[in-house]
């Protein structure tokens, strides 16, 4: 990787720059800008916009039809926002940040630039997290306020859960984007089959789901009577979230370093 060879330089040639100027350590603005444009351009933005719009529409309808209601708020935010909207947007943003580039081969041009591959990953992760949060946590908060006026801190609790889950989902799905060409399908398998189906069959599977880890934070923030329950405790939830995020990011960086560009049919 390192281009600085330590061969004994002969004559006092003009002092070769010891190293290429160090780029930013975490976030590379140009890479970030390009990723953002890829994520929000084209028709991807449509899916990203449609889901929060639907959530807000449902919230407004329920509020006008039945008035403020904490149970309704908890059901809509827990059953739709956190269970469906956050994973789906996480899949689109997380895999979309890198998957298409690897797929069509244009990632070569990015990798040939003097930017560390870990920096590329963390940059893309930050952008994906930002997009996911913008399209999930913010609408969740607004919907919660519309539905129940944030009584018992339900709106804030679910928004926080969505925000935290966004980070972990983005990291995990970004990793899938570097691992497989079928990243979207794999991500959906995790979100739908593991979290929704196996979670309802095997209680143990629930403890290993990002949704539940996020809920552990919501459970702590909301008032005790709000009816938010998580399979894991707060400490376990935070530890698992951190491990999943850091581990996935680190491994995604490794994958990108070892990426082979052999075209396969």
């Amino acid at each position, binding site marked *: 990787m390192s281009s600085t060879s330590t061969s004994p330089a002969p004559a006092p040639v003009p002092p070769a720059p010891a190293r290429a100027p160090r780029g930013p350590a975490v976030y590379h603005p140009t890479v970030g800008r390009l990723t953002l444009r890829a994520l929000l351009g084209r*028709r*991807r933005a449509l*899916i990203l916009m*449609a*889901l929060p719009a*639907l959530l807000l529409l*449902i919230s407004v309808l*329920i509020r006008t039809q*039945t008035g403020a*209601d904490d*149970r*309704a708020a908890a*059901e*809509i935010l827990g*059953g*739709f926002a956190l*269970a*469906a*909207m956050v994973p*789906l947007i996480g*899949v*689109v943003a997380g895999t979309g940040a890198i*998957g*298409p580039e690897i*797929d069509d081969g244009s990632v070569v041009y990015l990798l040939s630039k003097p930017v560390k591959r870990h920096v590329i990953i963390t940059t893309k992760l930050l952008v994906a997290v930002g997009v996911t949060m913008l399209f999930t946590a913010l609408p969740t908060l607004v919907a919660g306020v519309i539905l129940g006026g944030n009584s018992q801190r339900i709106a804030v609790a679910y928004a926080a859960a969505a925000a935290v889950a966004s980070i972990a989902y983005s990291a995990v799905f970004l990793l899938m984007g570097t691992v497989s060409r*079928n990243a*979207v*399908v794999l991500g*959906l*398998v995790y979100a*739908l*089959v593991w979290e*929704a*189906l196996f979670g309802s069959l095997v209680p143990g599977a629930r403890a290993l789901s990002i949704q539940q880890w996020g809920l552990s934070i919501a459970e702590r923030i909301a008032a005790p009577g709000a009816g938010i329950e998580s399979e894991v405790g707060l400490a376990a939830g935070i530890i698992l979230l951190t491990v999943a995020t850091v581990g996935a990011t680190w491994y995604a960086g490794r994958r990108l370093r070892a990426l082979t560009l052999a075209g396969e*049919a």
Partner: protein
Amino acid sequence: MQSDLGTGKAGAARADRAPGGAPERAQAPDARIMDIGYRAYGGERLGRSYARRSLFEHSLRGAYGLGRSARSKVLPFLFFAIVATPALVMVAVSVTVGIDELPIDYARYAVWMQPVIGLFLALAAPHMVSLDLRFRTVPLYFSRPIERLDYVAAKLTALTTALIIFTGAPVLILYIGALLAKMPFGEQTRGLAEGLAMTVVFAALHAAIALLVASFTPRRGFGVAAVIAVLTVPYFAATAVQFVAYDQGNDDLAMALGLFSPGTLIDGLQGLLFTDETDFPGNLAPDGAIAAAYPLVIVGLTALCCALLLRRYRKAGI
């Protein structure tokens, strides 16, 4: 053959004459266009229905990755294993423990396994139509004797058949297991018929929706996400709002909300026709006027998707 002989003779004649004198222009009458053996197709013309059947068979095999690379077989068969395993486990338990009733109704199996079936569908539908759009092979199909209707019908029946196999096989496994466990034959056969009927309705509705969505994008990855989104987002939304309505004691509204997603439509239909039980809040099944709306909406939605799909291919260029 014949033409070869002809040229041979002509060449020999010319060679004979050559030593005598310089080759003259006088030989012009010999010049002619050689018949080098191009032949018209003389075999049997298999026609439109044969082309349609080939397209159907090719698409159906493609849905399971047959005739494609080994990598493309992994996911379909993995999903098939996931969808069939619970049935096998239930059968194994029933046979060994010797209970006299299966733990799940035949008609509810497809509804229960919806997430996996949706994933299979999201994989199969874009493969069927997106690649043709992406590589611009659609105009080539239409240069054959098939028509727009044939193409759409072949793709649609292929996807429906693939889905029927996918969801019907576990139902059959349940049935065979039930007979092995010596459960009453008549009752089980009736259950199997109900289960297969629901499988067909499920497959027709979902195939029409998924194929329509997939036919709008030439990019496979986007198609997968779009199909999943169209199937799951309404389901989660409808279910969440159903719970709100149920909590407020408005059962009729909760039942009516079931009309707004493919998954709840099928669940409601099997509830009102066969099992009287659904995954709706309170496990209620639709009844009264709303119950009549379920079959109507299912038929209407399927027909609408088919019509839109036909319309989609009106312009053969893309």
